[in-house]
């Protein structure tokens, strides 16, 4: 009987060791995932800042006016000509 108890104890300690190791491995895997997420969020935060500044730069009255001029020029170029009186 005592040998059986020894065996069970040993098996339990091995199971505990394996469980702890797997728990720690899961923890590490999650930490790695969080780190990846963190870096990805950082990259997006930087992108948002860049885009907001770029948008502000592009939306100055002068640039919007230039864009409008380009659009108007393009529409004038593609507009059909007025028919002549004899047509």
């Amino acid at each position, binding site marked *: 009987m005592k040998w059986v108890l020894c065996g069970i104890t040993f098996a339990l300690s091995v199971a505990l060791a394996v469980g702890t190791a797997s728990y720690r491995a899961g923890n590490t895997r999650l930490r790695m995932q969080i780190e990846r997420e963190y*870096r990805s969020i950082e990259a997006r935060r930087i*992108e948002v*800042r860049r885009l907001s*500044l770029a948008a502000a730069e592009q939306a100055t009255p002068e640039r919007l006016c*230039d864009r409008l001029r380009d659009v108007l020029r393009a529409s004038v170029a593609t507009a059909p000509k007025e028919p002549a009186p004899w047509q």
Partner: protein
Amino acid sequence: MTRGERFRLRLVFGALAVVPLFLCGWFAWIQVLQNGDLKRPDGIRVALSADAATVQHRRTERLPGARGTIRDRHGAILAMDCDAFEVRAEVSTPKKVRRDCADTRAWLRSLARSLADALVRDQGLADRAAARSAHFERLEERLTVAFCIDQLPATGAAPESLPWRREILVDRGVSVLSVIEALEELDRDTDSVLLHMQHDHARVYPERQVTYGLVGYVEDQPLRSEAGKLLGFEVRATAGLEAVQALLPGAGGEREFLVDAKSKRFYTGIGNAPESPSTVEATIDLELQKTASRELERQAMAVSENAARRPLWGAMVLIEVETGDVLAAASWHRDSKHPKGAAFTPYQSLYEPGSIVKPLLFAYAHQHGGLDWERSFDCSSSGADHHLSVPEVGGRVVRDDHACGVLSSHGILVNSSNIGAVKVGSLLTRDDWAGYLDVYGLRRSLCLPMPNERQGHVASKGWLPGIKEPAFKKWTGSSYSIGYEHQVNALQMARAYLTMLSGCRRELRLLRAVTVAGTRVEQPVQRGPQEFSSDTVTLVRSALGDVISDDEGATGRHLVAAFRKDGTELVGLLAGKTGTAKSRTVIKGKGTVEVRNASFVGFMPAAAPRYLAVCVLQRDDSARFYGGSYAAPPAARLLLEAMRLEERRRLGQGPQVSATPGSSGRGLLAAETAQAGRR
């Protein structure tokens, strides 16, 4: 249990007992016999402790503090630090490619190509092919230098002495998400390359074209030890507002993370954030700055329309009279290839002011020199060049632009008579002239928070101790009376007029407030002791109002006529003084040449000035170049725009865009903006 079974059990448990015994023995070997540390192949001894184990897989990431932000008086950004990554690659050549030099070369070329591909993953790039080619060439060169590829034989195994692991800089200022993701993908897929994305900042200037000289720039300058060894690079500002000390980045932050044997990262926390950047509020009004740049450029280009030569340089400044705030300061150069190498003309280009000093002289002479404003001066001249040998200054010959008769002080200013001005100047003694230069600050620094000011100065000969009073009056005093023998920059002239119009010594202000660590410190408006009575100021101001009128002989009459044609009535609204000076200056590569300075100082409204503008254009030929015709129109348009903008803001409306397309402040591909090199 049989004997055999007992034996087998003992055997199994005995075998299991060997494991802890082995571990105990191993620990004893390492901890006792190795005496507490372990010698690594590279010779470094590693302490055998739990701390050493932790340190080995702990890494610290530096989070640098951002440089401060520069804003205009209404909060528009003029310069700011944007978050970005500095990407470094730790490259280890794989063993199999080290066996043959040709393979090593090919592998490194392929790596440079992959990195270049990742760097141009940004879909918004204007010319991706050109950008890719530039990145590839740069990266290939860096890898060649790092791995000493030039020293490799054409074929055969690489020598053992050659490095097999090196770190190179891939790029700085990487902030585009698609590029970051491409680099991370490359990092995951390539075992021999480990990319380090270090936090960094990229300096951006949203309205770069119109603020170059004023805001300045930062440069990476080498940092060397006393022995001259290169220690690294540091960011330094050598021009413009960027040199303000408060803009220096605050303390950086730190973030720890863990790595495994393959350098994969593990999260431990967000760490300490860096100090938030300071904010410098400039007095500049971005909308007026754009107008000033556009008008100055337009005028400089218009000069050449009449087959005349374009000016060498131009400067225009706009000042708020109440506070002394510099609202706009524009600079224009004919020959500069890049604004970085060109002087910021309102602050760094000196010129002889000519007739625009006459109101300053008259105010000083009325207050301190006993000038009776009602006194008449005979300004009659003779000859085709309207000259007169002025007896009050020992017979020095002075010329006028046109014939003037008997004039009062008011008339002298309106007609801009040199003869009359010299006669008024003769009322001042040498000490009075010293006081004049001192009150108006013509020899004093502007004390603006920008480096490399070219301070105005006077010709020293007249102030030598051996020069007697009559000789001083004849030569120096009479030259000062008509704006010669001393040089000023446009901002100095603006300060002198500000002093005259305010009646007390004034200083210009370029910073409104500085916010550091959440504490906002306002810069005070500086007012010195009273120098001129309100009567003096009113008399001079009234004369300057009549300069911009239809009166016969008024130097501003052509300006009035030109604006009236466009539907703008300037009489009663604008006051000012025109100036035209002929002098000599040294130009690099050309030696001493004759130049003409056309200048104008104006303020608006004429009766109670709120805005003051100074415009100067210098042309390097001897053709006539009048301040009233060339320098006055852009200054008048700038003053009108300032008034218009003030009214629009009062009504809660935004700035109005000119219907005429120009180039200043309108570039879609301005360098150093957040959109640099992008569509």
